[in-house]
């Protein structure tokens, strides 16, 4: 059995459970990520933006999609629990929404 309980025990604030990667070297300070992030993960900076609250990232992928210089990478997805549970039980890939999912 997985010892997930232990892993979870100290819920230290800001334990990032996401795949967000920011490559500041590529940032052109266009500010699109500041606009699209629904959790204010990025903050304005003088020459490039700052990844100020990485732990709040929910992997929606908006910043990556709208970063014209490819400075942001994140493995995004819907994160539907029912779909992941089904996938885990059946050993298949996640299918989200529509005929194959919630009815």
């Amino acid at each position, binding site marked *: *059995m*997985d010892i*997930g*309980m232990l*892993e*979870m025990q100290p*819920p230290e604030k800001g*334990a990032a*459970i*996401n*795949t967000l990667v920011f490559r500041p070297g590529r940032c052109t300070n266009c500010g*699109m990520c500041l*606009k*699209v*992030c*629904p*959790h*204010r993960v990025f903050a304005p900076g003088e020459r490039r933006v700052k990844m100020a609250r990485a732990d*709040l*990232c*929910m*992997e*929606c*992928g*908006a910043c990556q*999609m*709208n970063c*014209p210089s490819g400075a942001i990478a994140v*493995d*995004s*997805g*819907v*994160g*539907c*629990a*029912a*779909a*992941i*549970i089904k996938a*885990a039980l059946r050993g298949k890939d996640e299918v*989200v*929404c*529509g*005929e194959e999912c*919630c*009815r």
Partner: protein
Amino acid sequence: MEEGYATEIMATVSQLGSRERNDHLKARIGIDRMGHRVRPGLYALGSPTRSSPVLVTANYSLSFDALRSALPGRNAWILALDTKGINVWCAAGKGTFGTEELLKAVQATDLASKVDGRTLILPQLGAPGVSAHQVRKGCDFKVEYGPVRAEDLPAYLDTGECTEEMRTVRFKLKDRLVLAPVEVRNYRWLMVLMILAAVFVPFYGPLVLALTLGGIFLFPALLPRLPGKDLSLRGMVLGGLLVTPFALYQLLFWSGGFVIAAVAAEYMLMIAWLGYIGLNFTGSTTFTSRTGVRREIFAYIPWIAGMALLGGALSVVTLALYAGWL
């Protein structure tokens, strides 16, 4: 309803009536889940001119109606993308509210010939599916991201800017509770069984029904107040809390060797059940990441299953003790 994009401009109004309220109620309960759609295409809200703003949304009726009802007395164009009746944020996550669909809609409605402006105002939550710079390359229009919520659109249209507040998603009591009825629907056959059990099975029937309703309604309501970081753990805590009055009643007023086993079984089963309800809620929040959801599912499923099995075994022991077999 006809399929595909309408080529003609369709008229719409800001005012919602009883037909819409009926449709919204059904959508909230989860009746005809995929059927809450409007025809994709270009709508004239009020009497827009060639220079009125173009607002883009999904063809889910709740999304479309939230948009138009937020703009009383205003004239605007509404471009409804064919998201197959899925809301903006979910559709963006899947990519159906996306760059490709947006370009398709602009072309199918011949938008460039109908308006003079070359700006498309998208809801911010459409951004996970749309790449603004790719849209720019693919057509004459450029994308501007408006506020998260339609209610902030009038302020955005007047000032051309969004405050930090307008750019942030929230998950307030109302946002959480509105999700509960769909859960009732998801568990509908179980609910029927539970209601029957509550009527015919003394003590245990009401216990199970109360705990389930607690999981569906109290869990989202109390979410920020429950301890623990993971939603499953918070569900387990709530399960433990809610079963306690029942357990105390048994310990005080029932007698016999089986009572301890019965109480232990209830704790195990109900903590597992509410843990499971909590686990499922990870998919409904506005803050859990997919990596986080996946991690939580793989971490908690063994514990939930283990507790359920132990609870089942303890129930058998309880029954055996009660019947005097042990």
